[in-house]
């Protein structure tokens, strides 16, 4: 938000966000603006200037009149004579992190790409942070280590911060999810022996694996099965299986299929154990999967560190959104220190040009995508599904919980800081498998399902 003369011929007002170019006007795009370090200092300074001006002239019309009369430079100089910009600018720029050495846990799946790649690609360093990304053995362990503060923040499944805040499956500790890691990026993979059994109605008696009870995978799988008329608790068996074991279990015939994270879907294809039946994107395009989460305690006690960390991740996410960067990212996260997978598997997942296990090469560039914004409507949908399957009992104040856990304001602010465009409506509606979801009417949505537990 730079200090623009509101009557410039371009027609952009100081709070205008539309059009191309960037917000300070000196870069070709928002992204270039975001990646330009020098402009950040300028931006901070201009942010201070604008704040002060707003304080002096709270009325926008009066403000514009003043500016048009004296011109921006004079206006600044006049105020500078009575206000110490320099000190304030310095103070704001020195919002240095309280804690520079951090540990962030991750599970080695492609959902965590922004968290992971931020390390080898220097996004953490850029914020002055020394982050140790620690590979963790499983979701329960990552939850426990974050709860006992061995990790400052972690890669979690999107429902997990909700579950932890509500005290479902662990002690209730207020958690926040300021950023979604990835959207899409999952698939239902079936054992190669079922290649002629693609109609879900024939799946009665199948055994499925999902990574964790409180996961989008579990809810999406159940939704899919319920749409086909199968009751997920009585007509099939759903078990928690750690992702790497999914492929082995598939090969060993312990499970007939799984709805799991990449790269294990592609890995199953790569090893000839299974084929990809349907991408999660085809069920709900833009569904959240994994998230970056931290305890509220961390956020309140180390706000600068939290902001820096979040900024790094948001920038990394922005970088990952671009198709041309995907190959490079695959190479960066393939080594043993991170995902420890063959590079070609990761490439197929990230670029969306992949073998489907049945002899075809499919091109779907949005197979996995990265958008950090934690829509509160996601939270509400997850809560309805948790209630649907009996994971939470009793009444839930959907909106309140969603607002507390999915911190849209933080993300909005920081997205702007790094030059991204945050969505205007945190409560956007969407459709899942063709059925519309209205986040303002969660109870009705829940009631509309024939197969449920509550």
């Amino acid at each position, binding site marked *: 938000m730079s200090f623009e003369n509101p009557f410039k011929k371009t027609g952009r007002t100081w709070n205008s966000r539309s059009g191309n170019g960037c917000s300070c006007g000196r870069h070709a795009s928002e992204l270039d603006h975001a990646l330009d370090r020098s402009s950040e200092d300028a931006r901070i300074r201009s942010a201070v200037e604008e704040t002060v001006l707003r304080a002096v002239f709270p009325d926008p019309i009066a403000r514009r009149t003043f500016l048009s009369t004296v011109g921006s430079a004079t206006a600044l100089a006049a105020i500078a004579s009575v206000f110490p910009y320099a000190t304030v600018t310095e103070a704001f720029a020195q919002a240095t992190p309280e804690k520079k050495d951090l540990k962030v846990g991750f599970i080695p799946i492609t959902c965590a790409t922004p968290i992971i790649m931020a390390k080898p690609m220097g996004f953490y360093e850029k914020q002055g942070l020394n982050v140790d990304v620690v*590979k963790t053995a499983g979701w329960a362990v990552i939850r426990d280590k974050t709860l006992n503060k061995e990790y400052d923040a972690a890669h979690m499944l999107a429902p997990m911060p909700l579950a932890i805040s509500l005290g479902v499956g662990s002690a209730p500790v207020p958690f926040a999810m300021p950023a979604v890691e990835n959207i899409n990026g999952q698939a239902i993979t079936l054992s190669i022996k079922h290649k002629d059994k693609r109609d879900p109605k024939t799946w009665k008696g199948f055994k499925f694996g999902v990574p964790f009870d409180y996961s989008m995978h579990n809810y999406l799988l159940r939704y899919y099965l319920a749409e086909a008329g199968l009751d997920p608790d009585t007509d099939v068996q759903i078990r928690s299986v750690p992702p790497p*074991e999914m492929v082995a279990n598939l090969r060993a015939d312990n499970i007939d299929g799984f709805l799991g994270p990449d790269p294990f879907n592609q890995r199953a294809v790569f090893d*000839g154990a299974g084929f990809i039946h349907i991408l999660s994107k085809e069920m709900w395009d833009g569904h959240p999967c994994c998230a970056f989460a931290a305890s509220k305690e961390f956020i309140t006690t180390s706000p600068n560190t939290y902001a820096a960390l979040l900024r790094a991740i948001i920038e990394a996410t922005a970088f990952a959104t671009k198709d041309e960067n995907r190959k490079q990212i695959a190479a960066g996260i393939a080594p043993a220190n991170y995902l420890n997978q063959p590079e070609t598997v990761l490439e197929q997942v990230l670029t969306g040009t992949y073998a489907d296990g049945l002899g075809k*090469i499919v091109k779907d560039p949005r197979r996995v995508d990265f958008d950090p914004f934690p829509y509160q409507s996601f939270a509400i949908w997850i809560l309805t599904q948790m209630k649907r399957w009996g994971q939470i009992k009793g009444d839930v104040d959907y909106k309140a919980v969603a607002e507390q856990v999915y911190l849209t304001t933080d993300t909005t602010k920081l997205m702007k800081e790094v030059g991204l465009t945050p969505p205007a409506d945190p409560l956007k509606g969407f459709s899942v498998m063709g059925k519309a979801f209205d986040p303002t009417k969660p109870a009705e949505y829940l009631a509309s399902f024939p197969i449920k537990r509550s």
Partner: protein
Amino acid sequence: MIAIPLNVRAGLVSLLILATLLIAWHIAVSGSGPTAKVDPEYAKLMGATATQGKSAMPGPIEVGQKLWGLVSDPFYDRGTNDKGIGIQLGYSIGRVLLGFMLAAMVAIPLGFIVGMSPLMSAALNPFIQILKPISPLAWMPLALYTIKDSSISAIFVIFICSLWPMLINTAFGVASVRKDWVNVAKTLEMSPGRTAWRVILPAAAPTILTGMRISIGIAWLVIVAAEMLVGGTGIGYFVWNEWNNLSITNVINSILLIGVVGMILDQMLARLQGAVAYAD
């Protein structure tokens, strides 16, 4: 005929058995699975198993090559989650030794008390009998929940599992000290402390060391399992990491190294056992 000593003969037979096993293994994995006719573009995206029918299970040569790779550069450090096998083994051994020492410091004095006092023996017996059979991995969640630190929890689990053999053996060894020797100590007016140190301890030492040998074996078993559960560093974590990558070769190599280290630990204690043995 030159008489070949028993050791040499045994060694030769061992080698023969090993060679047979390796050859059988090699034959078992060199078979080809079904291959489908695939478009070469497609084939590029697929792994060797799907396209060439290569067995998912590695053969001895592949395992040998990977093993050489692991041990020839054991101390590399390419980041938090990727360290050389020497470093990982170091972490595991460190945890084992720490947990084991702590257990010894508790078990041996407690074993003395139990061995020398029929009252304490009877009083503590129910606790020992109930706690002894509990599997280490059952302790793990409880430890994590209360201790809240995964490294300390792992050491605690080692501690609680290596405690019992040492405790029981020490108690037994102490109680079985020949009465004659204790009588000698009495007639020499030796104080209880001096008696314990100069008579009972050396007398019970072989039995105590047997207990220690059993304990270290258990401790090594437990650490691998605990590290797989908790992750971070260590050979157990290494196995899990390789399993993640479905790299069976490295899993096999890890198992081999785990066995070798376990054997070394056991041998160290066997030496110690030899040092305190006496002919009676």
